């Protein structure tokens, strides 16, 4: 098992005037296991803690209690650059402060592979190009990122994430936060196909958060249902995404809104 979390809890510091008051937990007592090469979807309504859990698993946030282990090592005590070579994160949306070309963005994925004053070499260029090829964005290499469509941007950021990860496929995990939330149907299908391809051919372990049940059911090999920061169920989509579970998850009457047909 490359990635596992045990009794994970986290709460954001309160924004008000009483910083010492205990804040509510965004993630509480979560224990999960992600197998090699799995494609896991974290499902839940808005505010259920999906993104927080993703950031905890990826080591961007440090848990208040519990641990995240990657190949037997604690993610939050691993040196940042070493962690970044095994774990990459694709945020929901990327807003650049300054505009870069697509190739420059992909090359930024090589950051954890270079020393403080080191400049990218041929092998970094090759990794960036491989990432762009794998996501079908090689022809965009010299375009400016901010002139791309939402779907193209998403794929370029995935390319940078692939360039970031070590060649060794056994211990690399790609996290995606709501990869389809801001995309229209055509791009949703493109991203879904891309993730399946990465899963089938490159055997990348993928963990994504989504509130789109159909997307999760069609793409993921396993889903985790998250409600108010707690795990309701975990398993293959066919077993977990039952009308009863969905009704509990979204607190709706599923018979009135037949969204899923698995």
């Amino acid at each position: 098992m490359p990635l596992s979390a045990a009794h994970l809890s986290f709460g954001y510091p309160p924004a008000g005037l009483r910083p010492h008051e205990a804040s509510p937990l965004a993630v509480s007592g979560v224990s999960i296991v992600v197998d090699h090469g799995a494609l896991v979807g974290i499902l839940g309504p808005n505010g259920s803690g999906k993104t927080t859990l993703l950031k905890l698993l990826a080591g961007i946030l440090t848990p208040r209690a519990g641990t995240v282990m990657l190949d037997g090592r604690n993610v939050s005590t691993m040196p940042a650059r070493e962690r970044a070579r095994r774990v990459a994160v694709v945020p929901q949306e990327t807003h650049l402060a300054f505009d870069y070309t697509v190739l420059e963005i992909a090359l930024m994925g090589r950051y954890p592979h270079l020393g403080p004053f080191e400049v990218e070499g041929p092998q970094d260029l090759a990794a960036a190009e491989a990432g762009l090829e794998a996501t079908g964005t090689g022809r965009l290499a010299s375009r400016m990122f901010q002139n791309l469509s939402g779907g193209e941007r998403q794929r370029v950021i995935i390319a940078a994430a692939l360039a970031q990860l070590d060649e060794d496929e056994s211990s690399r995990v790609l996290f995606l936060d709501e990869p389809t939330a801001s995309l229209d149907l055509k791009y949703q299908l493109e991203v879904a196909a891309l993730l399946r391809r990465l899963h089938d051919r490159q055997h990348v372990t993928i963990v994504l958060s989504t509130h789109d049940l159909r997307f999760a059911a069609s793409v993921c090999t396993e889903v985790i249902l998250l409600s108010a920061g707690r795990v309701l169920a975990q398993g293959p989509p066919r077993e977990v995404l039952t009308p009863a579970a969905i009704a509990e998850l979204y607190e709706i009457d599923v018979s009135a809104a037949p969204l899923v047909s698995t």
Partner: protein
Amino acid sequence: MTRAGLPSLPLRRGVPLVALCLVAMIVAIGAAPFIGSTPIRVARVFSRSTPFADNIDAQIFFIARLPRALAAALVGGTLAAAGVVFQGLLRNPLATPYTLGVSAGASLGAMVVMTFGAAWPVGGVASASLAGAGLAVLVVYWLARARHSGLSTTVLLLAGVTLNAFFSALILFVQYLSDFVQTYRALRWLMGDLDVASFAPILAALPLVLVAFIAFAWLARPLNLISLGADAAASRGVDVERAQRVAFFSASLATGAAVSVGGPIGFIGIIVPHLVRRLVGSDHRLVLPASTFFGAAFLIGCDAVARTILAPLELPVGIITALIGGPFFLWLLIRKR
């Protein structure tokens, strides 16, 4: 797609443009001393037959104009590079070296010593402005840290802008207590002036600037990643909080040093980075050196205009940078979209 069709490393393609900016700076430093209300000739400046005490051309060159050109290069290059770092830190292309209160602190320090100066121990107005800048930086940093575990750039921005306004009020208060001579001197200082008249102020500021530039060199790549967002940078292995702290203190140090030499000269720190990004793109490893060299050349050019446009009257260079900079910047904004 064939391998031959793929572009080479983008960084490498920017290097000639950075070299071009370097050449522009060297040419400007070499040429500026020969521009001025009194014409001087190269042959006479370097003539060995006349002793220095009798060689007017050499005196004008080495005492008045060369230090001034070098001061312009130091101040212009430093302010432009500090502007780049502040813009990267705040993820905002409209940030300037003065956004976070450094210049207001420096000005307050300078004003206080000009008005009540007798008791100030060493270094005169320059060291007082540096002390004021340091005070402002520490207050802003303390505020930005007070309620957050990390460094909040939003609080940094709000604290800086507010402190700017507060210090400006204090400056007016100090001015109100000054006599006419002191007020005139203070006003001239605020306009920005590079008439250093010796190498001493340049040499005093140089070590601080060098320390800042070593930090800038280290910051170039982390600032690229911070352009993608703090979380994105963190997930790629950047220690974002440390990079932000280093950026804030090094850029503030550089700005304080530059202002102690030339006063709060405006617009360099925002115009030059904008122009340079159009030339070399956004990679900070290109933008930082290119802005440094081009900023140096640009301020030397502005100073040459300031010295000659109403000759024999010499205008403070801050008036010229604002006169050129303001409309030019507006033109850039209109042209962009």
